[in-house]
C-alpha cells in the first residue's frame, strides 16, 4: 500500500495575482494554477482514497477558516477540506479560484491555518504531510513568531513547498528586474522560512518548466516466482543442486489508461459535451453493455442460421473444422499438468546467441531474500557464467499448471547489483520460416551466383554507406562510461500524452486537446548537430545510392508485366492466341484467367467493354444461382479482379456502371431474393466505385464513392 497523503495547497488569489507580467499571455494566477492543477489532477488520477488534499485561498474576498476569530487570520478561506478530491470538487475549485478584490491576507497566517488543518485531519496517524504555497509575494506578511511556526512544521513532519511567481532564483537563473522592494523583502522572509523548516523554495518558472517532464511511476517490486533454481532432479539424484530464488520484473510495459465505451444518455440530444458547460459532463454518458447471442448453421433455416441458447452450449475447441466438445468433468483435460520450477537445461556460448531471439519482457532472478547461503550459491553460478561467457537455458513454470517456458538466463554483474536476467526463448512453433534471398549475392535462375547486380551495392555505394554510418555514430554513455542507449531519457509517448490530456480535460473541459510536449518526441528525429556533421556523407551516399521513388501511378500493373512469363521466358500469349475460342468467349468456370487474358490480348477498344459485359453476365448468374451465400466469395473475387484490371486499363466507368446496376438489382431483389448480405460483403471488401483518387479517368468523387455504400 502506498503511504497515506495529506496535502494542503495554499493559493494566493489576491487582486494582484490577476495581473499579467513579463510578457506572459495569462494572469499570474492562471500561470501558477497550471502548476497547482497539475499536482491536484495527478493525485486525483491515482484514484486513491487515501491521497487526500485541501485547497486554501489566500487574500480571498471572504474569510472562512477555523481560526477566523483572530483578525490576523482574515482573508483566508478554506475552499475544500482534506479528503479525496473528485470531479465535483475540481469543478467547485475551478469556479472558486478567481482573483479577488483585495490584496490583504497574510501568507504566513495561511500556513498556520494549513498546519492546523493537517494536524486535525491526520492526528497521530502515519501520513505524508505537505503544504504547498503559491504566491506572488506582494501581500502583507508578518514575521511574528515565524521561527516557532517553522519549528512546528519540522516537529509535525510537514513538508513545506513555497513557489513564487517571478521570485528570484539565482540557481535557476531567474532575476526579476525592478523588483518591488516589498516583494523582495517578502521573498527573503519566505526563503528564510523555507530554510528553517527544511522545506523547498523556488520560482514558479522552474516548476512550470518541469511539468513537461514525464513522471515515471514507481511500482513496488513483487515476486512473480519463488522457488528453487535446480540443476538435476532432486527426487532421483543426490547430485542435484537447489538454490532458493525469487523472480521480479526487470521490464514491464506500462500501458496507458484504458478508455471505456459510452454513448450519450438517451434524452440528451446530440451536441458535443464540450459545448455544454462543465458541470454534469460526466452524467450525460451512459455505459455500453455487450450482449452475446449464439448461432449455428442450419441449411433449412431462412438465412442458413438459427439462434441457440447459451445454456445448450458446451465448452469445446476446434480441431481443424471439427468441433471437439469437452465435458465439464474433463474441463482441464487439454491442460498440461506442471509444477512450478526453474530447471537448468544446459549452457550456451554468449557469442552463439542471437539477440533477436528475446521473445518477452525481462525478469531478474535473485537469491531468496534473507538467505545468505542462497546468495553465495547463486552468485557463484552468476560469476561462473560471466567468466565463461555462458548463458544458461532453463525450463520455467511460474505457477502450478501454467505452461512451461524455455528461458535464457544471462549473468548481470555491476558494482551496484548482481542477478540473472531472464527472458523467454522461442519454441519450435514460434519460429516461422519465411525465406528471403541473400543480401550479399544474387542467385540467378540458371543457378549462377552473381556478386554484381543492381540489387547489390557497388563498391562506391558500400564505401559511402560505411562513411555515413561512421559519421552518424551517437555519443551516449552511462554513468560508468560504458556504451549505452538513451533508454532512461525516453518516455512512453502514448501513456504520458493520454494521462496529461485526461487531466487537462478534467480541469478545462472546453479546451481542445493539447499538442504533446516536446520531450515525448525527443528521439523522433536525429540530433540536428549530428545531422549537420554527417551532411556531406549523406549527400555522397544519396548520389551513390541513386534511389528513385516510384510514381504512385506505375506501382501496380506495368512493373509486373515483365514477370508475366514463366521461368523459361516462353511466350505463352502466342500459344493462347492459337485457341480461337478463348478470344471470344469467357467460360464461367475459368472466368478470372480468361477475363485477364482477354484484356491483355485486346487489339481494339471494343474488346474491353465486351469482356466486361460477359463478366457481368457471369457474375449476375452466379449471384442468382447462389444458394444462400455459397457463391458470394467467388463473386467478390471476380468483382475485385475486374475492378483492379479496369483501373489499370483506365476504364473506371465500365466498372462503376456495372456496380450501379448491380446495386439496383440487389435492392429490387431481382437476383434471386434477398442479397443484402452480398452487398454488405462487397462493402467490406472495398470493391466500391472507382473514385478519382484511384483513377484520373473516374468522374466519381471520393465522397460519392463513400456515400454509395452507406446504408440509406
Amino acid at each position: 500500500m502506498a503511504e497515506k497523503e495529506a496535502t494542503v495547497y495554499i493559493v494566493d488569489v489576491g487582486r494582484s495575482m490577476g495581473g499579467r507580467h513579463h510578457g506572459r499571455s495569462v494572469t499570474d494566477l492562471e500561470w501558477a494554477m497550471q502548476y497547482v492543477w497539475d499536482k491536484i489532477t495527478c493525485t486525483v488520477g491515482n484514484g486513491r482514497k487515501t491521497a487526500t488534499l485541501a485547497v486554501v485561498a489566500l487574500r480571498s474576498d471572504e474569510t472562512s477558516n477555523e481560526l477566523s476569530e483572530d483578525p490576523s487570520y482574515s482573508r483566508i478561506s478554506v475552499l475544500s477540506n482534506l479528503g479525496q478530491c473528485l470531479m465535483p470538487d475540481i469543478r467547485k475549485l475551478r469556479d472558486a479560484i478567481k482573483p479577488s478584490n483585495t490584496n490583504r491576507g497574510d501568507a504566513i497566517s495561511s500556513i498556520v491555518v494549513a498546519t492546523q488543518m493537517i494536524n486535525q485531519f491526520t492526528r497521530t496517524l502515519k501520513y505524508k504531510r505537505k503544504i504547498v504555497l503559491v504566491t506572488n509575494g506582494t501581500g502583507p506578511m508578518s514575521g511574528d513568531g515565524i521561527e516557532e511556526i517553522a519549528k512546528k512544521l519540522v516537529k509535525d513532519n510537514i513538508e513545506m513547498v513555497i513557489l513564487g511567481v517571478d521570485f528570484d532564483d539565482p540557481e535557476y537563473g531567474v532575476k526579476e528586474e525592478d523588483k518591488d522592494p516589498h516583494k523582495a523583502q517578502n521573498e527573503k522572509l519566505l526563503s528564510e522560512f523555507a530554510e528553517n523548516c527544511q522545506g523547498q523554495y523556488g520560482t514558479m518558472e522552474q516548476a512550470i518548466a518541469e511539468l513537461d517532464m514525464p513522471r515515471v511511476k514507481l511500482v513496488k517490486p513483487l515476486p512473480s516466482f519463488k522457488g528453487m533454481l535446480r540443476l538435476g532432479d532432486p527426487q532421483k539424484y543426490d547430485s542435484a543442486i537447489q538454490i532458493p530464488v525469487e523472480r521480479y520484473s526487470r521490464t514491464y510495459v506500462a500501458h496507458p489508461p484504458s478508455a471505456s465505451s459510452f454513448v450519450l444518455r438517451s434524452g440528451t440530444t446530440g451536441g458535443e459535451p464540450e459545448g455544454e458547460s462543465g458541470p454534469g459532463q460526466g452524467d450525460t454518458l451512459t455505459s455500453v453493455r455487450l450482449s452475446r447471442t449464439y448461432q449455428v448453421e442450419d441449411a433449412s433455416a431462412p438465412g442458413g442460421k438459427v439462434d441457440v441458447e447459451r445454456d445448450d452450449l458446451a465448452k469445446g475447441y476446434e480441431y481443424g473444422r471439427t468441433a471437439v466438445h469437452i465435458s465439464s468433468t474433463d474441463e482441464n483435460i487439454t491442460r498440461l499438468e506442471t509444477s512450478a520450477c526453474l530447471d537448468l537445461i544446459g549452457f550456451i556460448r554468449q557469442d552463439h546467441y542471437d539477440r533477436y531471439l528475446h521473445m518477452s519482457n525481462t525478469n531478474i532472478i535473485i537469491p531468496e531474500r534473507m538467505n545468505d547461503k542462497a546468495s553465495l550459491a547463486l552468485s557463484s553460478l552468476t560469476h561462473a557464467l560471466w567468466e565463461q561467457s555462458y548463458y544458461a537455458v532453463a525450463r520455467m513454470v511460474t505457477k502450478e499448471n501454467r505452461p512451461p517456458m524455455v528461458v535464457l538466463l544471462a549473468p548481470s554483474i555491476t558494482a551496484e547489483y548482481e542477478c540473472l536476467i531472464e527472458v523467454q526463448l522461442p519454441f519450435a512453433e514460434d519460429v516461422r520460416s519465411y525465406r528471403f534471398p541473400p543480401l550479399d549475392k544474387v542467385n540467378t535462375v540458371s543457378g549462377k551466383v552473381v556478386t554484381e547486380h543492381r540489387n547489390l551495392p557497388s563498391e562506391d555505394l558500400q564505401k559511402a554507406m560505411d562513411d555515413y554510418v561512421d559519421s552518424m555514430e551517437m555519443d551516449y554513455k552511462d554513468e560508468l562510461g560504458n556504451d549505452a542507449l538513451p533508454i532512461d531519457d525516453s518516455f512512453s509517448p502514448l501513456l504520458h500524452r493520454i494521462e496529461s490530456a485526461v487531466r487537462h480535460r478534467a480541469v478545462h473541459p472546453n479546451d481542445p486537446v493539447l499538442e504533446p510536449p516536446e520531450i515525448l518526441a525527443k528521439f523522433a528525429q536525429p540530433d540536428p548537430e549530428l545531422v549537420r556533421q554527417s551532411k556531406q556523407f549523406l549527400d555522397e551516399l544519396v548520389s551513390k545510392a541513386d534511389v528513385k521513388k516510384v510514381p504512385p501511378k506505375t506501382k501496380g500493373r506495368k512493373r509486373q508485366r515483365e514477370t508475366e512469363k514463366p521461368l523459361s521466358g516462353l511466350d505463352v500469349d502466342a500459344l493462347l492466341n492459337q485457341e480461337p475460342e478463348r478470344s471470344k468467349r469467357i467460360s464461367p468456370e475459368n472466368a478470372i484467367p480468361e477475363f485477364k487474358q482477354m484484356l491483355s490480348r485486346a487489339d481494339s477498344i471494343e474488346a474491353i467493354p465486351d469482356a466486361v459485359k460477359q463478366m457481368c453476365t457471369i457474375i449476375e448468374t452466379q449471384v442468382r444461382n447462389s444458394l444462400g451465400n455459397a457463391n458470394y466469395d467467388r463473386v467478390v473475387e471476380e468483382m475485385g479482379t475486374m475492378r483492379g484490371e479496369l483501373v489499370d486499363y483506365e476504364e473506371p466507368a465500365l466498372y462503376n456502371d456495372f456496380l450501379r446496376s448491380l446495386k439496383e438489382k440487389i435492392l429490387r431483389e431481382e437476383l434471386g431474393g434477398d442479397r443484402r448480405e452480398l452487398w454488405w460483403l462487397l462493402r467490406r471488401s472495398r470493391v466500391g466505385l472507382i473514385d478519382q483518387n484511384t483513377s484520373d479517368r473516374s468522374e466519381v468523387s471520393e465522397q460519392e464513392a463513400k456515400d454509395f455504400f452507406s446504408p440509406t
Partner: protein
Amino acid sequence: MAEDNYTWEEGDFEEEDVDETSFRSVKDAVLFAIDVSSSMLTPRPSNDPKKPGAESPASAALKCAYHLMQQRIISNPNDMIGVLLYGTESSKFYEEYGENREDLSYPHCYLFTDLDIPSADEVKALRAVAEDEEEANKILQPSNERVPMSNVLFCANQIFTSKAPNFLSRRLFIVTDNDNPHADNKSFRSASTVRARDLYDLGVTIELFPISRPDHVFDTSKFYDDIIYKTAPSDGEAPAYLHPDTNTSTAKGDGISLLNSLLSSINSRSVPRRSLFTNVPLELGPDFKISVNGYLLLKKQEPARSCYVWLGGETPQIAKGITTQMAEDTAQTVEKSEIRKAYKFGGEQVSFTTEEQQALRYFGSPIIRIIGFRPLSALPIWANVKHPSFIYPTEEDYIGSTRVFSALQQKLLKDQKLALVWFIPRKNATPCLAAMIPGEEKVDDNGVQKIPPGMWIIPLPFADDIRQNPDYPRHEPSEDLIDAMRDVTGQLELPKKSYDAQKYPNPSLQWHYRILQALALDEDVPETPEDKTTPKYRQIDKRARDYVLAWSDLLNEEAKTAFGGTAATKSTLVKRGPKDRADSAGDAADPPKKRVKTEGDAASLDDEIKRSFEKGTVAKLTMPMLKEFLTSKGRSAAGKKADLVDRVEQYFEQKL
C-alpha cells in the same frame, strides 16, 4: 472471413495479417498434387544399415502432407489444405455433389482430401494412407494411361476457384519425379503451359518439389520452367528478383533422406509469407528513404481459444457468438459511430470525441527513422519488452532500396553496430524507440534457409517500463567456489553450444492438440505427455555429479566460515540421498539462530512432513511449514489450510 483473422495481442493493438487495400481475405490454401506413378511408388531402401527401412517417394510425399496438415491445424487454424493424387487408376472428383455431371471430367485424378480446413476424419484418412501400407495400396494404383498435366492443372484450378475463392494465397504443391511428362506429345505440352498460365492469372502459385530418380537428376528446364512463374501477381510483396529456387532443393537419395529433405523443404514453405507491415519508409537521413516490409518471424504461438459447441444436432457444431453493443440505460443497440471513449477520472468519466481520441493516438505516419548508430554492445541484455520484427527491403516504393539496405546491413554486420530508430510500424501505431540490428542468413543441415538475412527491430523499453531492482544481501563468492561451479557448467554445454528452438516444441501446446486429436478421432487419450523441455537429468548426473558434490562441499564450508551460526539459511542446496543423510544431519545439528521462518532445513522439513503423512497427521502441521514444503515442490501454496493439507497428501500419494 477477413475479420476473423484479426488477431489481437493482449493489451497491444498489434494487428497481423491485415491487408487494408485488398479485397482478398488473408488466408492460405495449399493443394498437394502428388504424382502416383510406378517409379514414385518404388520403395527406396535405406543405405544406412543402422536405420533400415524403405520409403517410396509417393509415401514420403503423403507423410509430408499429413505432417503439414497436423501442423497447420495448430499454427494456421483458418487455412485450407487438400490432397490431389494424379496418375491413379481410379478417379474421384466431387461426384457426390453432382456438380460435374460428366462423370470423368478429370480421369486419373483422385481428390483424396478436398481443399478445406481439415476435419478430424480427413486427418485420420490421410494418416491411414500415409502410414498403413494396405490402406495405401487400395488407392495408390498407377494407371497405365499417362494423365495430361493440363488436366491436372485445370482440375486444381477448379478446386481453387470453387473452394478457396478470394484467398490471398493459393498454392499448388506439385510432388513428382517426372521432369518431362510430355516429352513425346507437343499438344499436351502446350495445353499444359496454357493451363499453367490460367493458374497464374488466377493468382495460384505453383511450388514444385522435384524428386530425382536414382539414375536421373530432375531437370526443371525440360518442362517445369514453362509451368512456373516468378511470382504470382497477388504476391506483390515478394521482392521482384526472388526466384523460386526450384533447383536448389531437389530431393534425392534413399527413402529416409528423401523424406527428410522433402520435409525440410516443405516445412520451409509451410506458411505463406505474410507481412506485418508493407512499404514502410526506412529513413536513413533527412529526405533519404528506402522502402521495407516487416514480418513476424518470431511470434508466440498460443492454443486457439476455447469456443462453444452446440450439441443439439447430429454432430457437434461450433456456435458462433455475435456481440451487440447496447446502451446501459435503454438497452437499445448502439452503432459504432455513436460510441465515444471516456476515461475514469475522479469518480466520473472524462470523455473525448472519436476525432480527439484519434488525434491523441496519432504521432505521425509509419516510419523507421534512423537517429544514429551505436555499437551492438550498447544494447543491454535486459532491454527487451516483446518479440522483434524482421525487415526486408522492397523495390515497390523506392527503386534501389535493396542495394542500399544491403549496404547498410553489411556495414552493421561488419562493425557489429546497431541503428537506433524511431519506429511507427503502422498507421496509428504508437511510436517507440527501437534497436535495429543486422541478422545473418542461417541454413540448416539440408541447406535450407532457417533464418533469412535482413534486419531485426527490437523495441526498447521506455523509462516508464523499467522496474526497480529489489535489494538483497550480496555475498561475493571466492575464486575457488566460482571455479568449482565453472567445472559444473562446463560439463553441460548444449549441442553446438547454442540454443536451437527447433529442438524444443512447446509442450503445453503439443499436449493440447494431442488431446484434441485423440478426442476428435475417438482414440485413447495418451497418458504421458512428451516434453522435450524437461532437462536430461540422467546425463546431468552422469556428467556433472562429482563436480556438483565438490562445489557443494566448498559452498557449505564457505557458508559456515562466512556466516557461522548466524547464517540466514533455509534450505540445503544439495539434497543428499539416504546414504548422505548423516552428512546433512550434520548441517541440521547446527541450526541457524536467526530463523527466517519456522524451520531450518529443507531435508529435515521433508522428513518431518513425510513422517506426518505416514502417521496421518499432516493437518497438525503449521501453515508456514505446509507452505514452504509445497513451494519447494513447485506446488501452489495458495488457499486455506485444508487445501494445503490436501495438496501435501496428494503429493505423497502420487509418489507412492
